[in-house]
């Protein structure tokens, strides 16, 4: 399985009237074909901007400042806009958070889907319609031959998200980026959509990036996880590593703030105190240091490098440095990875 995506030191900023908002401050990761990568973090952590940067769809006044996004051997940050439109929707597809507003209300599903198919393939109009119907059937829309003539407002939220997925997968993309695909849906529908994504992944062998703030979603479907905070990557590892051997105080904080339902026990949630950093004036050190229970002097002065805990598991925390004091739960002596 080859590498499909490699993001190196990606920095994206929004140049507003008030100043530069550094939304992403140096993300680096790579993913292999067939991976399902989860990017998790709270609002403003830079996860959506990371995703939009991958397909280079940052809207004004935003700009990719530095770094590269290597997809299939091409650096997407270096392509022209017209080269990018060839890739968007065909090789890399995206689905978004709110299916209620993400489909143009004045066109039929047929119009919207065939537009994308005709744009990226050589199919005739007739073939495109047949293909669209097949895709709708694949994502579980009943009576696709008639439903294809309906308008978006005639579908429920879950159905619309299925339409979004059908459209996104219609040109057989190698990579699907799902930005909070279940956030706007009911819990039961959430499960259905996630199941659908997993099923389609097996059928089409598409790699998927799922962006979410919901650890439950991540646990359910992902193979690898990146935890982001304040525009930086905090921890990266496989699902098991992030859930069973978390090695970053922020990851631990996230775990503690998820309710656990155990009968008879009455535990309070442990929230993470404070609020995320102002990305207009990001802290010089680790972005989590102002809220971290274990913060040391160095945490305030310098952002931690990625310490390597295993081949797949890295964490940006000074506690892992060999000179750091021993804190229970944090493996010391991880190798510094640069």
């Amino acid at each position, binding site marked *: 399985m080859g590498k499909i995506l490699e993001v190196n030191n990606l920095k994206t900023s929004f140049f507003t009237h008030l100043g530069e908002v550094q939304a992403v401050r140096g993300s680096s990761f790579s993913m292999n074909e067939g991976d399902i990568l989860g990017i998790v973090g709270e609002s403003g952590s830079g996860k959506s901007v990371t995703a939009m940067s991958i*397909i280079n769809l940052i*809207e004004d006044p935003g700009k990719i400042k530095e770094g590269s996004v290597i997809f299939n051997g091409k650096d997407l940050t270096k392509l022209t806009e017209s080269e990018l439109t060839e890739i*968007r929707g065909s090789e890399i597809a995206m689905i978004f958070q709110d299916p209620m507003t*993400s489909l143009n*209300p*004045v066109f039929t599903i047929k119009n919207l889907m065939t537009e994308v198919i005709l744009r990226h393939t050589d199919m005739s109009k007739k073939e495109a319609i047949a293909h669209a119907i097949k895709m709708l059937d694949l994502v579980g829309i009943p009576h696709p031959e008639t439903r294809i003539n309906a*308008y978006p*407002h005639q579908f429920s939220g879950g159905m619309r998200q299925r339409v979004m997925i059908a459209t996104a997968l219609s040109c057989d993309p190698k990579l699907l980026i799902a930005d909070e695909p279940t956030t706007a849906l009911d819990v039961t529908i959430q499960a259905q959509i996630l199941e659908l994504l997993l099923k389609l992944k097996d059928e089409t062998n598409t790699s998927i990036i799922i962006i979410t703030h919901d650890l439950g979603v991540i646990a359910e479907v992902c193979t690898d996880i990146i935890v982001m905070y304040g525009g930086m990557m905090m921890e990266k590892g496989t699902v098991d590593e992030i859930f069973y051997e978390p090695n970053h105080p922020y990851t631990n904080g996230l775990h503690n703030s998820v309710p656990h339902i155990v009968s008879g026990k009455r535990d309070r949630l442990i929230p993470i105190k404070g609020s995320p950093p102002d990305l207009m004036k990001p802290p010089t050190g680790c972005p989590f240091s102002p809220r971290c229970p274990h913060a040391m002097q160095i945490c305030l002065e310098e952002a931690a490098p990625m310490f390597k805990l295993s081949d797949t598991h890295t964490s940006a925390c000074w506690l892992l440095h060999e000179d750091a004091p021993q804190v229970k739960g944090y493996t010391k002596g991880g190798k510094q990875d640069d």
Partner: protein
Amino acid sequence: MGKYFLKRFAAAILTILLIATITFFMMHSIPGGPFTRERPVPDSIMVRLNEKYHLDDPVFIQYLDYMKGLVTLDLGPSFSIIGKDVIDLIKGGFPTSAKIGLMATVLIIILGIPFGIISALKQNKPIDYFVMFMATLGVTVPSFVIATLIIYVFAGLLGWLPTYGLQNPLGYIGPVVALSGYSLSFVTRLTRSSMLEVLRQDYIRTARANGIKEIVVMGKHAVRNALIPVITYVGPMVAAILTGSFVIERIFALPGMGGYFVESITNRDYTTIMGITVFYAAFYIIMILLVDVAYALVDPRIRFEKGAK
């Protein structure tokens, strides 16, 4: 769908009758009558005149008489332009007003919408500032100032256009430009803000993420949504423009309907006031009905919501 329009049609008739009623009683509450002059008419003549036109009947009887005529589309004779029926006045004045108005409407739509779109796409660039400056000017400068300036500069100083009348085709330019100034600017501003709003919508991002070419994203996905508020404004605007502007018709000496209307009010020409008001109202209501049809064509959500009931 058919049932919906039937319902709308019934409501329209009712509205017109209501407007006629209100206008009738308001008009009669103004002191004086059609034959009141600065130099008083001798009483004996006044009595005869009132008798001839049934103005000596109680107001309520006059009202019933008038409504009876209205239902059979008989608008009655004019009180001050002797020997002419109100319907003739409308037939005489409306074509001129409508011709000027139609040209102004076309100008407003073919210039206002593209200007607004360009302005939105080039937001905060020099061209946007320029268009917005012109549009602000157009909204704030009254039409009679524009009209006077056109006459002064293009008819007077340069001699390119005639100063009045429509005998020469060039004579249309002045009235059309002066008449469209305000609405053209308004439509430009409306299209721009509506377009900016639409460009922020999620479905525009979806289209871009699907690799749709930017020109198609704009031309297909954005414009159609952006036009919905513009249609709302354009419908009633067309009614207002087509039925004539008193000021413009005065300045350019055009034989339009606006002039008759204002004169009829100062003359207490009861039948003319009523006739033109009812005509305006009917026209206005038809335009609003057309707007609703246009909505349904542009926005499928409206079509189905109403069709379902």
